[in-house]
């Protein structure tokens, strides 16, 4: 490592595939990742997102295709020479080393002078606010603290790209939201490209610049959180990211978000009803009500209503009218 590592990276993934025996885990994925971007790979387990990440990190050989960093192929560079930071699932901290030794490891194996290592580790400790825990071993830290050590360790050598493999998976829900904010904040400050793998859609929506939805080894749809939520192209995307009703119309299949439907007792609405039906169940969630409505013909529509907007309480078995604006329903390009 003669010259300073580039702190920013453009990744270009071309026709990348991975086969395990006969099983095609990743199938011809094409993806351009801009420098400084926060990109999330989102998908159910078995969708190939972790396999894709492991190929980028260099832990898995590529079956076909190529990966470029700033224009040069990295496919044949071994994992330890790629200089990509990585936060592992379960963190993979070195249990026999202190926090300071963990964070200093990358520079130490690069044979950097001790003074430089110390300065850099201090900088990292500041970044993740762990100044008071330098001499503890990972076993003596809480889950959130371990997560921060893993992040500091991965960033210690100023990698152009940071890979994060379900880094919040081991944390409880409340802590998760807190750490999401910290992660986003650190990303904004250092400008490194983040590639983030998760199966948690809320996490993906709240943090990412762009999301790649993966399914069966392929990219199902790529876009900003807003695009994906408002303009899903397929039934899979619409139902995986948030909830959706699906309506069969003469010209194709439409997705309709439950919170975009207005509900009222039959005949009390301002305009004509788009659909009429019978209330089958009502579930109270505090800020909102979830109403399941049986429509004549056997379909069922879910309606989410803000609690404060209900003037006359609904009851089970009641006849109701459903209305929505034209913009609320989205025609799906694929089934």
């Amino acid at each position: 490592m003669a010259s300073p590592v580039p702190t920013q990276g453009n990744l270009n993934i071309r026709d990348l595939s991975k086969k395990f025996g006969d099983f095609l885990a990743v199938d011809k994925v094409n993806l351009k990742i801009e420098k400084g971007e926060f990109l999330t790979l989102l998908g159910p387990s078995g969708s190939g997102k972790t396999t894709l990440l492991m190929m980028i990190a260099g832990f898995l050989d590529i079956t076909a295709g190529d990966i470029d960093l700033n224009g040069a192929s990295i496919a044949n560079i071994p994992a330890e020479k790629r200089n990509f930071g990585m936060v592992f699932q379960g963190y993979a901290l070195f249990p026999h080393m202190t926090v300071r030794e963990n964070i200093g490891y990358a520079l130490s194996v690069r044979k950097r002078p001790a003074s430089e290592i110390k300065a850099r580790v201090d900088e990292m400790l500041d970044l993740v606010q762990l100044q008071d825990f330098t001499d503890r071993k990972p076993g003596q830290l809480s889950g959130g603290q371990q997560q921060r050590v893993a992040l500091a360790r991965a960033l210690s050598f100023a990698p152009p790209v940071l890979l994060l493999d379900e880094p919040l998976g081991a944390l409880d829900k409340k802590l998760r939201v807190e750490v999401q904010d910290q992660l986003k904040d650190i990303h904004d400050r250092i400008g490194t490209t983040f590639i983030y793998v998760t199966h948690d859609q809320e996490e993906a929506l709240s943090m990412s610049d762009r999301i790649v939805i993966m399914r069966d080894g392929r990219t199902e749809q790529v876009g900003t959180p807003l695009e994906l939520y408002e303009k899903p192209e397929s039934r899979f995307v619409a139902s995986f990211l948030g909830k959706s009703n699906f309506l069969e119309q003469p010209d194709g299949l439409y997705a309709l978000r439950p919170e975009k439907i207005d509900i009222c007792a039959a005949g009390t609405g301002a305009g004509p009803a788009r659909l009429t039906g019978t209330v089958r169940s009502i579930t109270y969630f505090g800020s909102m009500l979830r109403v399941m409505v049986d429509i004549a013909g056997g379909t069922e529509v879910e309606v989410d209503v803000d609690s404060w907007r209900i003037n006359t309480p609904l009851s089970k078995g009641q006849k109701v009218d459903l209305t929505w604006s034209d913009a609320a329903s989205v025609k799906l390009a694929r089934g």
Partner: protein
Amino acid sequence: MRSGLFARFNRVGAWILLLFLVTPALVAIPVSLTPKRFLSMPGGEYSLRHFTALFSSPEWLSSFFQSAVIGLSTSALATILGTLCAIGLWRVSSKYSEVVRAFLLLPMIIPQIISAMAFYRLWVPLGLLDTYPGMILAHTILAAPLVLITVSASLANFDPKLEQASRNLGASSWVTMWRVILPSIKPGVFAGALFAFILSWDEIVVTLFVSKFNIYTLPRRMWNGIRENTDPTVAAAAVVLIALTLIAFAVFALVSRRNARQSRT
């Protein structure tokens, strides 16, 4: 991870070492087939005369028989004592039970030469020297800790809620032990019984101290043969022992594979 030069070197080295572990024992096979009267390699000619001698010698046959009797008795006794003890310690599960467990493993860890001295010291005044009960008792004390270990390992995987469920359904603790606990830990009990038998079948140091003329087990007769270092019958006996070991190992591997498959479904 990609396999580097080091990994390949390591793999080759490991296989060479494994061959070093297993193959030397096989030298007994050609030696046992020599047609000569003394220990030697067969020079192109083979003969089964030493096997014939082995199986027609009253001394060797009596040693086989004695070892089998002592081994089976030891195995039965050690399995009962060790299994009860393991279940008891599992039930108690306190800091005292862990101390007792450590204490009960001592016969396995203390050098056999010291165990041999101890049995010899006590067996003389008790009149147990050179008797079946003396041999079986000594071997049981050495072998039961093995059963304790294997059964405890099985119990560690046993869900205590199953016991509670059985009690809740109206079974007494005795019935629960027979119908719920024992069937679940069968693999551990079986492995323990086998290990106990092998220990006794193969034991020489304690045997040298507590047996004399009446009891002359197979290891003891082999020991004599090895010290005298002339009669090829020893080689034939060694081959029989290797064959028995391989058969026992195959049975054990098959049974434990079947158990593993059953527990998976």
